[in-house]
């Protein structure tokens, strides 16, 4: 997996610091161009030269070249320490943040988008807010055609030194892309790949009938077979992997498994398997819980673009 261009969507505030470290680190290690992208704000109604700053809510002049230059200078100075040996370009946009990020990613043909789980500065005490991923992230993860790496806490390992990558699958079409991305990443950095599936017991109970032990074992066998057919058959000589199938509540099991294997990266498809069209899917609750609680970065992949190469 080779990254030529990485888009780092940021508010250039402490809320994005953890993601910034990963973005600059990756750009340096892969010798990729890093596009640091900041959305200035949402235009006011009608013709106006003013925008409502998405972070502060203050009205700012948007078409004023001086204002744009000032913002770029602020971003440059904010990331000055990280910029050494990194090919950085700072870009700004005006509009609804998620649309502008997607637009910029498409225009730049970015190989990867990096974001924090929340882009606005939060009161550090408001842990409960961390129960909800930022609206911008949800929408970017839902629609992006390239993988989206979500960084919600300090990453203790450099991306190129990752040794354990967990890919969690629900056997959806999008999960196939997630698997492909995880396998190529594991191959590229020499990491061990853990292919994981959680048989959703909570969904079984929701049907009003708890599955018997025999039924669970049957489902596990079926999942093993699916993993063999869908993934192991495509390994193409890659042998540094393990397969595990646990039963329980998927996000809990994924997090437990990631911790047990000291995962450096979790890769998942962003939407639930019942959605065939990603545009109809809300940010899957499993992915959201994993993103917010995972000990490591989470890559959301929902499209084969940028994964097949």
């Amino acid at each position, binding site marked *: 997996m080779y990254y030529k261009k990485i888009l780092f969507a940021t508010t250039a505030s402490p809320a994005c610091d953890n993601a910034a470290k990963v973005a600059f680190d990756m750009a340096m290690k892969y010798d990729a161009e890093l596009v640091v992208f900041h959305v200035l704000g949402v235009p006011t109604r009608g013709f106006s030269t003013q925008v409502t700053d998405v972070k502060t*809510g203050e009205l700012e002049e948007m078409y004023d070249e001086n204002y744009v230059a000032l913002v770029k200078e602020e971003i440059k100075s904010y990331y000055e320490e990280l910029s050494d040996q990194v090919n950085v370009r700072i870009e700004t946009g005006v509009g609804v943040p998620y649309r502008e990020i997607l637009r910029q990613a498409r225009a730049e043909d970015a190989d990867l988008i990096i974001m924090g789980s929340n882009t606005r500065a939060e009161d*550090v005490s408001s842990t409960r807010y961390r129960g909800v991923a930022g609206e911008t992230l949800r929408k970017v993860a839902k629609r992006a055609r390239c993988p989206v790496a979500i960084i919600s806490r300090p990453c203790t390992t450099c991306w190129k*030194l990752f040794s354990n990558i967990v890919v969690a699958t629900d056997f959806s079409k999008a999960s196939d892309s997630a698997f492909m991305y995880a396998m190529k990443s594991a191959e590229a950095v020499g990491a061990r790949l853990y292919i994981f599936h959680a048989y959703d017991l909570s969904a079984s109970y929701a049907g009003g009938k708890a599955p018997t032990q025999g039924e669970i074992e049957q489902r596990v066998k079926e999942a093993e077979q699916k993993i063999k057919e869908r993934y192991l058959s495509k390994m193409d000589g890659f042998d540094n992997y393990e397969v595990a199938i646990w039963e329980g509540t998927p996000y809990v099991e994924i997090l*437990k498994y990631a911790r047990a294997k000291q995962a*450096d990266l979790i890769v998942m498809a962003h939407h639930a398997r019942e959605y065939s069209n990603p545009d109809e899917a809300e940010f899957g609750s499993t992915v959201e819980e994993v993103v917010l609680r995972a000990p490591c970065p989470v890559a959301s992949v929902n499209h084969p673009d940028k994964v097949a190469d």
Partner: protein
Amino acid sequence: MNAIVLRADGALLEGGKTVETTPLRHLNAAVTLADGYSLRSFFRMAERYPVLQELNAFFPTLLERAVKAAASGCTSPGTDRLELFRTVEMIGFPGKPRMEIYTSLMGVGPEGRSEIRFIQLEDLLDVPLSLGPLRHVVLGDKVDSFEFETVYSLFEFIEGVTWELGFHGTPMQCKIGR
């Protein structure tokens, strides 16, 4: 409101008597923490009354880690105590105005309150645990932040602590790829 005392050894005390069974009946009781109460006491309570572990999906895993940790000396420099407190916050822009009511578990040290999710659970077990005030924040303005005395039910206490600990997950080490 019924009251219940949580002892450092994990026992629940109602009217001076130890609750032996049916801890769920006391979930609505107002909590008082006995002297010497720490996070380790919290996990001892979960060991003593296993049904309480069902209140959070991560409780059994957290308990497993707590049991495996060193028997004493599990503290973290800069964190003198842990405090559970409640916040009532009016939130305005961006988005529609709304009110959030939530509990937080934070570390308290010489430099004030700090997040604990980056500290390993094993380094927090012997840090004293206390119940803090209710903070009322008006539209995110810290100047208009007021503090009031409040009470916590046993349910709020368990749910608040386990919720926060559910975000613990910083890797202990990093290995080099092959």
